């Protein structure tokens, strides 16, 4: 079982990293020929950075669009972030310089109870797809599957955290063993097997799924463009060589 999971982790991490890199390259190189920031939009670069910050941290446009989706979505992502920081304890060595931050009572406490916030958010988002007619109409199977997958990961984590504790020292040894290629035994727990197995599945399908909104938001032209179409003429890089005017402008 330990070897199976070690292999699974290497394979899934490889697919995750390679798939994500390919996707990012695609996002990077796909042309944005038009100046289409959603107005009112910032007119300076730093303003765009601030707008993107609000978008990524507070989900500003979602807040303006649908309050219920925003509440549940934001709860989930907040919980996810806190739980992520808590999980660093399994991969960070206790003599690494960021350890005091991880080995902090408040951080660990927040990370543990964040799982409940996550679960409420996820169930809210699932309920939205089931009970709101217009959302149910446009929901694809992958929408449900993604939610159910993450709900199962969350629930198995909650089980280990609150109800059926596992040998966390053994688990850290296993995770560190993966990183230094000195494989250790995986502690036995059905919830751990479910948790890690589904995380591997999640990592594998991440580069092919709607979860790509995580890196994708940064590439969104309606959010990452400066609103200065009159001050500075917008020409996509690929079109520059075709465009006589811009050749004049770039030289002058």
């Amino acid at each position: 079982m330990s070897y199976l999971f070690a292999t699974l982790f290497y394979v899934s991490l490889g697919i995750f990293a390679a798939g994500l890199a390919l996707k990012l390259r695609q996002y990077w190189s796909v042309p944005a020929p038009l100046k289409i920031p959603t107005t009112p939009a910032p007119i300076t670069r730093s303003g765009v950075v601030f707008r993107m910050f609000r978008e990524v941290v507070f989900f500003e446009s979602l807040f303006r669009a649908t309050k219920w989706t925003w509440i549940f979505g934001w709860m989930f992502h907040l919980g996810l972030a806190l739980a992520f920081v808590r999980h660093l304890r399994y991969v960070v060595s206790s003599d690494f310089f960021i350890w005091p931050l991880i080995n902090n009572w408040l951080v660990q406490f927040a990370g543990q109870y964040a799982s409940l916030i996550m679960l409420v958010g996820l169930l809210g988002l699932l309920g939205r797809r089931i009970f709101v007619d217009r959302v149910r109409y446009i929901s694809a199977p992958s929408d449900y599957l993604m939610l159910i997958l993450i709900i199962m990961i969350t629930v198995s984590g909650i089980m280990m955290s609150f109800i059926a504790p596992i040998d966390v020292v053994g688990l850290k040894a296993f995770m560190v063993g993966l990183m230094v290629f000195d494989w250790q035994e995986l502690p036995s727990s059905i919830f751990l097997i479910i948790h890690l197995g589904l995380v591997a599945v999640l990592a594998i399908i991440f580069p092919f799924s709607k979860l790509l909104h995580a890196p994708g938001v940064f590439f969104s032209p309606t959010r990452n463009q400066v609103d200065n179409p009159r001050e500075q003429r917008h020409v996509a890089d690929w079109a520059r060589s075709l465009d006589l005017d811009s050749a004049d402008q770039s030289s002058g």
Partner: protein
Amino acid sequence: MRAILGQLFLLGPMLIVGSVVAGDRVSLPKYPQPVGEKCVEPADIMRREHMNFILHQRDETVYKGIRGITAKHSLKDCIDCHAGYDEQGKAMPINAKGQFCESCHNYVAVSIDCFGCHRTTPDEINKMRQLTVKFNQDRPYGGE
């Protein structure tokens, strides 16, 4: 929040490189060997459930008032067996660096809140009383 997360993602490869360069492969917690033959429960169960045992014992003792030899999961007894001793034979606090509780708890970033109230070393006074009782039993009153 997610911007911070992005930075943390970058930490991943750094950590991997860092730990490979460090070279000591998988480090595990190191702590003094306990005295006594065996623990009150099998080791693999203790590793997972010790906090619940201690909490349950707390309820028995404090809320129900059940004390004495029926106390199987007494924190005091944990410390009696698992405390480490320095060169002078003096017991070291069990939550001190490298000692029984601290070594694992620090390894996985779990804080311990037992010792805000409870003592961290074997109870010397109690041990003295036991020794006195034994001394008196060995030498009945009026002997020597």
